[in-house]
């Protein structure tokens, strides 16, 4: 038996490195000339020294042609030739960097951003040059000179508007075609009419041309649009950078003894697979041989590892902790637990009424009103003096002056500043709409394992344990990656006891660790197994004991470590008027204990379906629910909720659907996010009010025919500056109004 296990362990180790090769090959892309390119995420790169070290270590590998580190995205791009991938991951781990593959299909150059920046550059060039020509016209250029300058302006404005303005024109056209109106419709109409009228004025040698207004408008609005896009793109890459190494293949055992890598999608029920310690279960399966412990915390919310033996059922996504297993698939990837969750998420998405962003709602009111005003102005002037040219000119001036320059910047500016505030506090915002929804929250639902707690066991009674026993226990525990062993090893390291040399430690799966020192047998593990020589009654009620020849030396008790500042976060949320509840898939007593400490309502053993149903019921009764959760089992609930947050440690699926991802351990991220969102909402409302006031003043002036191009340029720039400055108040005032807990945690970053 022992020989057999050793062989399996060897096979698994080999399989590990073979798997790494297969995955590297799968994730590389061919770039021609026999070269392949592979990108790896290396999260621990942090300075120029790291860059140099990594590049030098990789370039000396024979297959590698070129290696380049990107410090901003913390990635390494390696170009190599041949069919066998170079030992990139191994080389990096030898010099102390952990590298992960990530899905390159999501990557590639950001074409939209490049287009926006190019458009911005062209619009900026045109706007500044036309403005210079306009200044000389305003300062009294004579007839001939004015015509020359008008023609020059038209020449610069035309290509710039075609290139940069098409972003707005396309979007407006798409909206109009499906019978909707968005903010781009009045923008496009304003810009096009301003240009058309100015061109006419230029041809007939008229005094007023609005080329500067048209290009400046496009330039200002593109700034807002680009900032908005950069904010979302940054959150997306940051979240993607966290993506963990999820197996895309599994090591399948054939009946003739051959071991072949098969992509997860090609696994059929009945196939046997080898699952090494530290790997996640690829599809729903049953254990055929081996004993181990399984960490289900991401899948079901249970915080304590489950022991499994032959015959146990495994859900896809659970993590094998202690020793290799042979498993048999019971479902295909499409029918596994993960796929179930994704189907439920889609159902929740469909049942969710689409949220309309404030800017879109404003645009729906704004566009008809502006156009009606312009039309009314035209009709009034026609009646008043019957001069069609004068009436059209004034009506277009109304459109130009009301063109929602301030309005177009009012909302994105606040969102960008809010996203920056959130980022400084370790939070990633998906988009501006999420911020608006977050501001409306009145109920917060927490998951327990991994959200209220860190999902890591922590030694509770460390002070009651003798230092020598603790040192011995932590030395033994260092040989295992069971959560309890990790906790004991961590506690021992903190005490810095004298090191003990052990001759050999064996792990007996499901029981514990055993070591022989000077003829004595030390066991660290389950009381029933370690304390074989003591009467049953004396056996400690602890989860883990350390024994010498069957006699108890020390007993260890554990608790799931609560997330930092959880009580403060909860009391902040209560002060902000939110109802709070815990919905967990874990056992009743563990949930009750935590809920009691935090003084919260709770429900235990809640299935993913029940979580979603619960949130739907709350939404139906008019509550706006924020779901905070991390597990696969929370993912449908995250989608169903009005707004959602997930910690960075969450399952990939959950992290991808959550509106906000918080990167730090502290739970104060939740009240901080809601507060920033509420303040942002107030600023958005203020900005919209400012835009309305501006229009109330500007429209009568324009309707009376008193607007000149100079006045339009000043009014437009001034109103934009006002809303941009107002948005900055989120940064200034925020520093004084933080809840009690935040200052300490904003120091970190």
């Amino acid at each position, binding site marked *: 038996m022992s020989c057999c296990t050793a062989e399996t362990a060897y096979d698994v180790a080999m399989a590990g490195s073979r798997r790494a090769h297969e995955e590297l090959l799968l994730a590389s892309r061919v770039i021609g000339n026999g070269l392949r390119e592979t990108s790896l995420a290396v999260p621990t790169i942090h*300075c*120029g020294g790291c*860059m*140099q070290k990594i590049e*030098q270590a990789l370039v000396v590998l024979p297959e590698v042609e070129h290696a380049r*580190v*990107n*410090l*901003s*995205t913390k990635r390494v791009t390696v170009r190599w030739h041949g069919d066998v991938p170079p030992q990139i991951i191994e080389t990096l781990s030898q010099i102390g960097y952990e590298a992960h593959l990530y899905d390159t299909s999501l990557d590639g150059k950001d074409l939209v951003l*490049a287009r926006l*920046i*190019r458009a911005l*550059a*062209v619009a900026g*060039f045109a706007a*500044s*040059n036309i403005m*210079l020509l306009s200044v000389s016209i305003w300062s009294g250029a004579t007839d001939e*000179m004015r015509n020359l300058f008008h023609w*020059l302006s038209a020449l*610069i404005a035309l290509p710039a508007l075609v290139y940069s303005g098409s972003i707005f024109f396309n979007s407006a056209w798409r909206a109009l075609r499906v019978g909707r109106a968005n903010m781009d419709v009045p923008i496009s109409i304003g810009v096009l009419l301003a240009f058309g009228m100015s061109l006419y004025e230029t041809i007939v040698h008229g005094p007023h041309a609005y080329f500067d207004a048209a290009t400046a408008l496009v330039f200002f609005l593109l700034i807002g649009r680009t900032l908005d896009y950069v904010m979302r793109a940054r959150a997306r890459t940051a979240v993607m950078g966290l993506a963990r190494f999820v197996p895309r293949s599994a090591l399948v055992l054939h009946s003739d003894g051959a071991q072949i890598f098969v992509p997860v999608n090609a696994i059929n029920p009945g196939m046997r697979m080898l699952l090494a310690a530290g790997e996640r279960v690829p599809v729903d399966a049953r254990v055929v041989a081996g004993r181990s412990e399984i960490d289900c915390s991401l899948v079901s919310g249970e915080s304590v590892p489950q022991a499994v033996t032959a015959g146990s059922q495994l859900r896809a996504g659970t993590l094998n902790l202690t020793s290799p297993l042979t498993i048999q698939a019971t479902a295909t990837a499409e029918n596994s637990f993960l796929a179930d969750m994704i189907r439920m998420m889609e159902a929740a998405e469909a049942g969710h009424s689409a949220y309309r962003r404030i800017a879109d709602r404003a645009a729906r009111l704004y566009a008809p009103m502006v156009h009606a005003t312009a039309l009314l102005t035209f009709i009034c002037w026609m009646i008043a003096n019957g001069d069609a040219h004068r009436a059209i000119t004034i009506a277009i001036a109304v459109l130009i002056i009301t063109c929602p320059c301030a309005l177009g910047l009012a909302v994105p500016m606040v969102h960008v500043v809010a996203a920056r505030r959130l980022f400084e506090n370790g939070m990633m915002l998906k988009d501006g709409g999420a911020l608006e929804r977050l501001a409306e929250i009145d109920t917060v639902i927490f998951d327990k394992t991994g959200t209220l707690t860190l999902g890591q066991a922590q030694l509770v009674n460390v002070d009651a344990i003798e230092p020598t026993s603790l040192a011995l226990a932590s030395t033994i525990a260092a040989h295992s990656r069971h959560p309890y062993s990790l906790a004991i090893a961590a506690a021992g390291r903190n005490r810095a006891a004298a090191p003990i040399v052990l001759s050999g430690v064996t792990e007996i799966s499901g029981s514990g660790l055993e070591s022989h020192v000077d003829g004595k047998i030390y066991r660290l593990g389950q009381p029933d197994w370690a304390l074989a020589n003591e009467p049953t009654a004396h056996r400690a009620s602890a989860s883990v004991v350390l024994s010498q020849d069957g006699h108890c030396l020390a007993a260890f008790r554990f608790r799931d470590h609560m997330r930092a500042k959880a009580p403060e976060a909860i009391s902040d949320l209560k002060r902000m008027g939110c109802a709070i509840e815990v919905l967990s898939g874990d056992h009743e007593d563990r949930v009750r204990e935590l809920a009691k400490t935090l003084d919260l309502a709770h429900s235990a053993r809640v299935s993913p379906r029940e979580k979603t149903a619960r949130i739907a019921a709350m939404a139906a009764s008019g509550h706006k629910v924020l779901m905070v959760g991390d597990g696969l089992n929370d993912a449908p609930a995250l989608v169903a909720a009005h707004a959602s947050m997930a910690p960075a440690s969450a399952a990939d699926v959950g992290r991808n659907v959550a509106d906000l991802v918080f990167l730090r351990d502290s739970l104060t991220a939740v009240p901080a996010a809601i507060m920033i969102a509420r303040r942002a909402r107030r600023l958005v409302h203020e900005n919209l009010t400012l835009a309305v006031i501006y229009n109330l003043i500007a429209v009568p002036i324009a309707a009376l025919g008193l607007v000149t191009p100079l006045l339009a340029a000043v009014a437009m720039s001034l109103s934009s500056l006002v809303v941009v400055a107002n948005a900055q108040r989120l940064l200034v005032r925020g520093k004084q109004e933080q809840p009690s807990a935040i200052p300490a945690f904003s120091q970190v970053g």
Partner: protein
Amino acid sequence: MISISYLIPISLLLGAAGLAAFLWSLKSGQYEDLDGAAERILFDDDSPVRRDDDSRNKA
């Protein structure tokens, strides 16, 4: 009036040259790793003149 006929084209050309330079730098990927570029200027990795390559890298 004569001066304007060449000053305006010159100013526009200079502006266009700036724009073209920006678009080129964008296209050639110079904004893709701003933090890295700041560090790379400190690297002393020109091709070695002498053979004591190793000691230079360690320094």
